[in-house]
């Protein structure tokens, strides 16, 4: 049997990190329908 509980746990943690980076990237590059104030709010939430 190959594979470990630890590897799966770290893979999940990494997926969540990638999701955050993706959210931030989208926020930084989102041009429409978001004011600077809204963008600032979301970046603060993500970076808190």
């Amino acid at each position: 049997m190959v594979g470990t509980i630890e590897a799966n746990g770290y893979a999940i943690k990494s997926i969540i990190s990638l999701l955050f980076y993706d959210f931030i990237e989208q926020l930084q590059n989102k041009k429409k329908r978001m004011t600077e104030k809204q963008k600032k709010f979301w970046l603060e939430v993500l970076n808190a």
Partner: protein
Amino acid sequence: MAYNPFMANTITFLKNHQRFAWKVRIVTAHTYLEKLVSTSDEQVKKVLILRITEELISSTEDLAMWIGATQTRSNPTKAYGDVWEYMLLGSATNRQIVEILKDIARVKTANGLIKKLHLAPIEKIASVANMSREDIQNILSKILEAVKASQSNRTVRRGVLLRFHNKVKHGMMVQDYGHELFIRDLMLGKNGRKKNRNLYLDLDTEKAEKNGGDN
């Protein structure tokens, strides 16, 4: 992706999961392992080996669910508005879980995995994360390795480990055979005939340590 007030809750959930819940199975398995190597009680050892194997199989399901949630988020439905809702409401049969894992396991490169997960390109992720392209590629490669191993674990010998997992959680399927544990599995064929598929689990501390990842 819609940025609405509920998403702040989702981000809180994700942050919390990243701080705490992701390691629940790891801490559980390590705690079992510590006891496993320190106890001289054979029956306690057997119980712990059963539980570690159960955690291993459950962890493959966790991984598949996170992949499913990550893929679904870019195309939210009424049922699954975001990642958190998918994790709360989502359920998948073994066949669906294996399909999710197989689909990802077919991927050959880090770039391919990024596309499958519907994430921004590696360069953009690396820039936001303040990491190198190689760092992000390494992270993706590790995810890919875990997925491939999980797919193997769930499909080996026609899913014997999964069936084992389902039986073990209802402990009456397990019998103590001295130097090993016997798990009787019974399958009903399409022709209505019953077929025994028995599984024996050795009292192997080394294997249990490998499953936990403490090696």
